[in-house]
């Protein structure tokens, strides 16, 4: 093992990895994180902590990671390139590693236009692929970006995300190939609703042999209602929700829709688990953390191996 990451440990044991995410609150109340954490205890191997997702200001990912770490979790520090230059990024990487964070997820970041501070200046000193290279250089070569030696290397397991449903489709596997070349070790995908398209993407990934270098965790998000499904389809960039899913939710009584949403999610996981190259499941239950355990249980993902 290169790191102390629980994700790496579970992967090495040959089991499917289960991750979920926890969005920090828009305030300084640590209890919010602890409450969300309690809902996930024992249900996952690691927890992503989002970094000002959708460009809305929230408690920092790093602080929320520390709160979860105190609870016994193995948090995944999400880091976007929108808000920090290479000085701040390298500094935060050192700080996270110093406090026992074992995983980092390297992301480009949503444009600030979507958030609560659309008048902000963005940074994008580097992109997500260059961020992967940065973490890898710091960890494996023990060097800062300008080549100076690091005393005390940051030992982090390196992750990234990819959206198999964004355009242009034909380069999505090639782009993952660039991330693999840059040194990424695990990958979480955008929520999968269109399974045939995901299968096609996985085929392209396997053709390039990327699945052997990068552990791919397939992402799922349960629908709470047909309204949420429609919103995801029409208003979230790069989201692919097939009409038959909307029809299926529409076909049940309103009070039964969330139950149907969970069922769809569990069925999706069961299909994804069978796909060659899929090494884990990333369950993103957006502001619905209480359902993660139930989904994991129904999908046959529990119990999780103990975190050591």
């Amino acid at each position, binding site marked *: 093992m290169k790191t102390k990451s629980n994700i790496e440990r579970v992967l090495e044991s040959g089991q499917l990895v289960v991750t979920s995410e926890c969005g920090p609150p828009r305030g300084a109340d640590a209890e919010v994180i602890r409450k969300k954490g309690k809902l996930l205890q024992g249900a996952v191997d690691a927890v992503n902590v989002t970094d000002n997702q959708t460009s809305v200001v929230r408690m920092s990912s790093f602080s929320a990671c520390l709160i979860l770490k105190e609870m016994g979790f193995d948090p995944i520090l999400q880091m976007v*390139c*929108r808000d920090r230059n*290479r000085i701040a990024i390298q500094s935060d990487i050192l700080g996270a590693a110093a406090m026992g964070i074992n995983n980092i997820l390297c992301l*480009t*970041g*949503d*444009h600030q*236009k*979507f958030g609560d501070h659309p008048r902000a200046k*963005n940074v*994008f*000193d*580097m*992109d*997500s*692929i*260059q961020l992967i*290279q*940065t973490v890898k250089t710091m960890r494996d070569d023990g060097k800062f*970006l300008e080549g100076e030696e690091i005393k005390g290397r940051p030992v982090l397991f390196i992750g990234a*995300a*990819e*959206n198999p449903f*964004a*355009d*242009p489709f034909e*380069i999505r596997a*090639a*782009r993952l*190939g*660039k991330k693999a*070349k*840059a040194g990424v070790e695990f990958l979480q995908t*955008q929520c999968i609703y269109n399974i045939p398209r995901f299968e096609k993407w996985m085929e392209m990934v396997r053709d390039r042999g990327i699945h052997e270098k990068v552990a791919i965790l397939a992402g799922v998000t349960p629908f709470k209602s047909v309204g949420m499904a429609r919103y995801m389809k029409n208003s979230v*960039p*790069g989201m692919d929700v097939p009409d038959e899913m909307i029809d299926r939710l529409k076909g049940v009584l309103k009070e039964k829709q969330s139950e149907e949403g969970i069922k769809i999610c569990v069925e999706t996981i069961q299909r994804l688990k069978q796909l060659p190259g899929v090494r884990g499941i990333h369950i993103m239950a957006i502001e619905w953390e209480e359902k993660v355990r139930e989904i994991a249980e129904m999908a046959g993902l529990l119990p999780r191996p103990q975190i050591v």
Partner: protein
Amino acid sequence: MIVADRKSLDEILKMLKPYKKVLLLGCNECVTVSATGGEREVGVLASELKLSRAKDGQEIEIREQTLERQCDHEYIDQIRPFVGDYEVVLSMACGAGIQYLAETYKDKTVLPAVNTTFLGVTLEQGVWSERCQGCGECVLHMTGGICPIARCAKSLLNGPCGGSSNGKCEVDKDLECGWQLIIDRLKALNQMEKYEEIIPIKDWRTSRDGGPRKRIREDLKL
């Protein structure tokens, strides 16, 4: 060319409030081509200002003048004989021209009549589009002749991000995704192998981040 937008009449009137004698200066270069600050626009703005001020009972005297350029001493010096007759200079040139006037005539207040926006091209009559951010280290040879710095909303060197949808950018559904354009072009040129290469982290010293830039050609100096 450098593209600019004229400021609103209200904003210009507000800036000119304390003044009665104004030298309004257009520029015959970029801002003429982008129909913002050439001779014609000088005439239009002067009429608008005079009308508004007359309506408020505050007459204004405006001398209209359009220089060949406002970014060269040779032309800026042409106003020296009469600039002293005016309380203020209102320039319709780009930000470079406005500043060069201000530093040339140190005791004169120089006001901007336009917002300078970008380096771009004329797509069609009345439509301009950004193409270059003057970063000082061109990568167009790697990206099919389409600039990721200027044309990707996040200036990604290894795009596209996950927000590219049907060829459009996540920032605005009418905005083309710069990386979709790059990929289409690389495909058309049969150069997709270039996409497989990771473009390294950029050296921003050549851009604004290195501080205000200056270029010296010793061989051309007199």
